């Protein structure tokens, strides 16, 4: 084997190794940023609420103070609420500090201020993108700074079931899904429409917790 070919193979091996080291962690994180659930609000009246709990596990923490307390690792839960006609009826961005937990209500936070009450439906979809701090502190519309999906918030949802005259409550984790660039852009653009043309309508609130 010629020296030139040997050198070429060695360079190839080194290049593969370097690319691998750079890309490997991205494979571990790439699809851990997007999750969704449904909501069921049988009568659109109060009293059939669902609750959502979001936890920042601290996976994004990289720096501690001298006594072990995280000084970064904040994430945004960028929330997009859709009715059953694929229309975005509300959006908001909620900051979660590392190790924190936030509680949200379907009635009091997510559907309390729809962009147009006429568009509310009994069922719909709630999407959460785990993202960076891109505004003050979170801008789900990405009007000035992009949402950079960043792992890895965790979320749970209760669901109100319609079982004849009763409405039992169940609970489930949000379901993770791959996030495409187009889906992210679509959710952002619809949210931008709401924020810029809704006169304050359509902006959900973040419940309680930090």
């Amino acid at each position: 084997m010629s020296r030139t070919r040997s050198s070429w193979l060695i360079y190839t091996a080194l290049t593969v190794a370097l690319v691998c080291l750079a890309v490997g962690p991205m494979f571990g994180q790439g699809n851990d940023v997007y999750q969704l659930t449904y909501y069921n609000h049988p009568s659109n009246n109060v009293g059939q609420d669902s609750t959502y709990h979001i936890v920042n596990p601290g996976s994004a923490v990289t720096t501690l103070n001298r006594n072990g307390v995280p000084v970064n690792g904040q994430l945004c839960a960028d929330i997009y609420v859709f009715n059953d006609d694929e229309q975005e009826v509300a959006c908001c961005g909620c900051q979660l500090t590392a190790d924190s937990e936030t509680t949200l209500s379907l009635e009091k936070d997510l559907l309390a201020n729809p962009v147009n009450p006429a568009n509310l439906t009994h069922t719909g979809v709630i999407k959460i993108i785990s993202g960076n701090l891109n505004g003050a502190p979170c801008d789900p519309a990405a009007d000035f700074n992009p949402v950079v999906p960043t792992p890895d918030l965790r979320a749970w949802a209760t669901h109100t079931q319609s079982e004849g005259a009763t409405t039992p409550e169940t609970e489930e984790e949000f379901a993770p899904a791959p996030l495409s660039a187009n889906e992210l852009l679509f959710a952002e653009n619809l949210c931008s429409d709401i924020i810029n043309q809704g006169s304050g309508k359509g902006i959900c609130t973040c419940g309680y917790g930090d």
Partner: protein
Amino acid sequence: MSQTGNPRWLTIAAITICLLVIGGAAGAQDVFSVTYFSNNLANAHLNGWDQRVRIVNPGVYAPSYPPAEMCAMIYVFDNVQEMKDCCACEISSNGIVDLSVAHNLTINSYNGSKPNDGDIKVISAVPNGTFFVQPPQGPPVTSNAPCDPSGGGRDKNGNYVLNIKPTPDLRAWSTHLPGYKQSDGSTTEDEFQDASLSAAELASLQEQCTNIVENGSGVGICTGPFPNSSTVCDFTSIP
């Protein structure tokens, strides 16, 4: 050039390692799981409203026969990201620990205030030694379980030891009390969710646990239950 030194083999080896790295990164670490709790009102347990955390050692970790004990390192935060309690349980293979959020995990919080909402983190780890923290004054805080959520506390120079070795793969479930700011009277249940455990987060949990224990004079450590044949926890007695 010998075959082992052939650049072709070097290339193949690099690609193989690359695939392994990507595969490893893509796969879950399987050592860190989280859940939340809510509506844990100060008198919830007195009214019979409680949330349960159950952790099982499936017996996967078996460096020798029989499968080995594992440690569930438990960290409890309120919803403003302050650690309120930490503790650990040694769980035998196929063993289960059944904990009450109200009675065990939050009743002896560091600042004396039972959190209403928050999150619970569990690290699956191999035994790392007896819980031992020396407060600035008074006797050391120790336990019988060979599981130390503070990761060895501090060494004689005051530096954190950080000796927890996360190892798959304990499994955990939690019941919840749904309701916005107050329980609506129902109970639901879900699995803990896996999350990525960063080196900084692992260090932070051990350091914060050390901090609250060495300054807590016994508070900040979960309480009860009594040990059984499959479980020994490093709890303090119920205050």
